[in-house]
């Protein structure tokens, strides 16, 4: 187990380095820079500004310094905002995390419930209803679902705020919008996993021993049936928690998702590399957690 963890960590570092390097050079290759606006700044003034942000040295030197700082977890300073990249992540990641966790709770509860019902009532009406709901969740994009929910619950009924987050109520619409797609996928994965599991010999044994159907499904079946869901949960959690640009934009959630897009349009180099490295680190870490969880749920996959 330790070897697995160490191996994955080493691999993760390589991935982080690759992401940092790739994003560093890709964004700099894009035309225009952070200080190009409609009203051009005189070259004198621009020189001072570029000096301050270390944009005048050759790219390879900038890259060297950037990596050096990265090792000490210094992501640099935003070129368009007052904050450092570290502060941006510290200030805005919690909004994304809250929204993401809320959405995840909706996705897992709803998804597992629908999936189990569908599997237990295989090819019956309940199965079709559950799978239709999940299909709707997967197929309606959030930029359609979000405004639709706003239209109904905010602009017509005036029950929930259309944008901005604060209290619990304000998270309901964005979390539902964000969670629906994942709920649909989780429902399908759960159903498939359960169907597969329920055909296994040990389930037949359990049934033969007279275990109640409820216990068969929820206690014996679910444990193994959830394995594909667990695999999916790693990247899904990373994606949900690190922020969705679209949902955050619709509902004006001041999360991290905004910076993935804004830093590209602004050519804010340190912010883009910073949030990408942060997101990658998160993804690597969660995948590791998934691997460990796998081992716990199914002893056969344990690597010694």
């Amino acid at each position, binding site marked *: 187990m330790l070897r697995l963890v160490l191996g994955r960590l080493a691999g993760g570092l390589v991935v982080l380095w690759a992401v940092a390097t790739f994003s560093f050079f890709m964004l700099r290759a894009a035309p225009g820079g952070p200080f190009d606006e*409609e009203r*051009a700044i*005189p070259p004198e003034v621009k020189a001072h500004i570029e000096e301050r942000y270390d944009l005048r040295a050759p790219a390879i030197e900038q890259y060297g310094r950037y990596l050096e700082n990265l090792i000490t977890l210094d992501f640099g300073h935003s070129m368009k905002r007052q904050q450092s990249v570290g502060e941006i992540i510290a200030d805005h990641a919690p909004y994304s995390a809250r929204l993401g966790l809320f959405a995840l709770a909706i996705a897992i509860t709803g998804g597992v419930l629908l999936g189990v019902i569908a599997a237990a009532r295989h090819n019956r009406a309940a199965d079709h209803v559950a799978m239709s709901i999940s299909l709707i969740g997967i197929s309606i994009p959030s930029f359609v679902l979000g405004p639709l929910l706003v239209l109904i619950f905010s*602009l017509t009924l005036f029950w929930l705020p259309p*944008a901005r987050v604060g209290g619990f109520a304000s998270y309901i619409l964005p979390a539902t919008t964000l969670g629906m797609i994942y709920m649909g996928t989780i429902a399908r994965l759960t159903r498939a996993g359960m169907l597969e599991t329920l055909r296994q010999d040990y389930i037949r044994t359990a049934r033969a021993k007279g275990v109640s159907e409820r216990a068969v499904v929820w206690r014996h079946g679910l444990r193994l049936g959830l394995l594909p869901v667990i695999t999916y949960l790693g990247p899904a959690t990373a994606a949900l928690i690190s922020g969705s640009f*679209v949902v955050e934009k*619709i509902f*004006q959630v001041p999360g991290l998702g905004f910076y993935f897009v804004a830093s590209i349009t602004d050519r804010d180099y340190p912010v883009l590399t910073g949030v990408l490295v942060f997101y990658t680190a998160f993804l690597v870490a969660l995948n590791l957690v998934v691997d460990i969880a796998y081992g716990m749920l199914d002893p056969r996959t344990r690597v010694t």
Partner: protein
Amino acid sequence: MTPAPGRLALVILVAGCGLPDTEYFGKVPEVTDPGHLRYCNSGEPEGIDPATVSSTTAMKPVYLLFDGLTDYDENGLPEPSLATHWEVSDDVRTFTFHLHDRGRWSNGRPITAWDVRYQVMRVLHPTTASVNADGLSELRNATLYNGGAVRIVQRDGAGLRAGDVVEVTAVDGRALQAWRDAGDAWPDSNARRGSKPLALRDLGADEALAYARVPANADVTIIERRDGWGYVYWNRGDGVYGWVPWTELDVEPHAAARYTIKPVDGGGAEVEVAATDLLMLPEALGVRVPDDQTIVFETTNPTPWFVSLTDNRTLRPTPREAVSRSPRRWTDVDTIVTSGPMHLVAWRQRDAMELVRSPTFWNQDEVKLDRITILAVDGQSAAANLYFTGACDALTANHLPASYTRPLAARYKDFHVEPWLGVYFAMLQTETFPNRHFRRALAYAVDRTQIPKFLHGGQFPTAQYMPGTPISQLDDAELALCGVTRDTPGVVSLMVTGELCYVPPPGLDFDPTKAREELALARAEGGVPSSFVYKFNQGSETHKLVAEYLQAQWQAVLGLDVELEIQEWKTFLSDTKNGQFEAARFGWIGNFPDAEAEFLPMFRCDSPNNRMQWCRPEYEALLDAAKPIRDRQARLAKIRAAEAMMIEDAPIIPLYVYTQVHMQKPYVRDLHLNLIDQPPLHEAWLDPDWRQD
């Protein structure tokens, strides 16, 4: 940035359910707190430090938090604020402002002329690296100071006298430009070290009150010298500034450097002196403080618009005691010191700023509100939704999705359209299209009057360049001032209320016959391409609609094939700047209504904004000829001739004057919108009894 997600709500609203059949768009909540305005701003500002910010988004909080010598009046023109009155010298090069003594910082310290001078120095000093430095370029020696290339002679010798202001041309035998091109820093005559640690503090403060300590033998840069004290910058982390006794700055790291200098007035030969004989100090700038209540600005050329610079953020003073301690973060809630009608008490990034009435502001009568919440709503649909549900009382200008304007304009009483000091135009790359007749043909071929019919934002079609107020909207006094009759087409620029009016020359307005004649002339000279590409940027539906319209017009009138190309914003800026386009859209928004200062310099050959690469020495000669003229009418005549020359040559094809589309709930009173989108928000108030009118 695409505002597409979320626009759907309206589409459904319009198509499916129909817009609510009310007088106003959405809910009009009861006014529970008449002293609290909730303003939906267009996103999070890049900062609120007047010296360094430049976006219109940032100006809303900046002008509430910081006072200026003058402030914007209802028309967007300067009115007295910290200054009670001012005098302009006969040669229009010296501007003397008199301050009253009631101005206070939020920490209680009086605001004096020294604070204004500090702001000038701060904006221009290279260590600030401010994008606003350009705004003060008319000030004497400002450009040299900003480039670190001006010095004051410290002792007599080599034909120079102590106090002379000189320009540095080379250091150690290498021209400044060569140092810059190589990306190297030349040995600075202002660098110092302390043989003992330096305790940075406020001017005259005790050493025990120091807020930063510079270790012995670390480099600092001298910024200012006063009463036996030196104000220095220590470049560590975000940087820190502070005063130390002058004698403690006892080590000169670049004492051996040799400076080649010449007098700033241009005359006189170059001489070489030791770095130790020179210092860059703010006294080199054209700004003087004869006493605490008086500040004098001096410009290189007659600058009739100088007063218009004093309401702008660039000249709004910032508090030295706060900036020095934390140059980049002093505007945080716990450290900010303000001078305006409002003070900052809470700031949640990308969500909201809370401003409350500042008890130290000198003009309390003017402030009608106790609290202003500025919501940072970057999504246009989200902004419209918040307004609809009554979560904000007013929506900043042009922050509605483009598709909303048409259905809303016709229906709701809280939808308003005002002119804006900006012009939308198509520009032509004159090196690709050197043929004047071809460019003129393109200009004559566009019927501008159709544009507002498909954009629905109340745009005022124009073939003129300098934007302004449509002549049809002027009152009789203004008509007389401008010397036009009501049925004259076009716009005028009202520059000083009741005093000065500029009538821009007419442009090449729609005339298909002339268009075809010009095309024939161009064809005879071989200057007509078989097809060309018109570029526009993403981000607004408007650009696409205009592009398609131009394409259709040029096809219908001239039979030309035009291809359209859409580009991402920064790529578009970069391509057009490098001349990599044939035709493209652009827009220009002015800070104040003065063609000479704000709209015509971009057509100079070496202007970084001259994307058209149009270069006419005769045009520059006219602008230069205007520079020394003191009489404003005579000066405007030259300016008008220059603008006419440009517009006749058609490097650009003006299409319409921008408008500000905005919404405010019916109970919001006295929220005056002006030509430059700087409403004095603190003068607004909320009327709980609005229904009784």
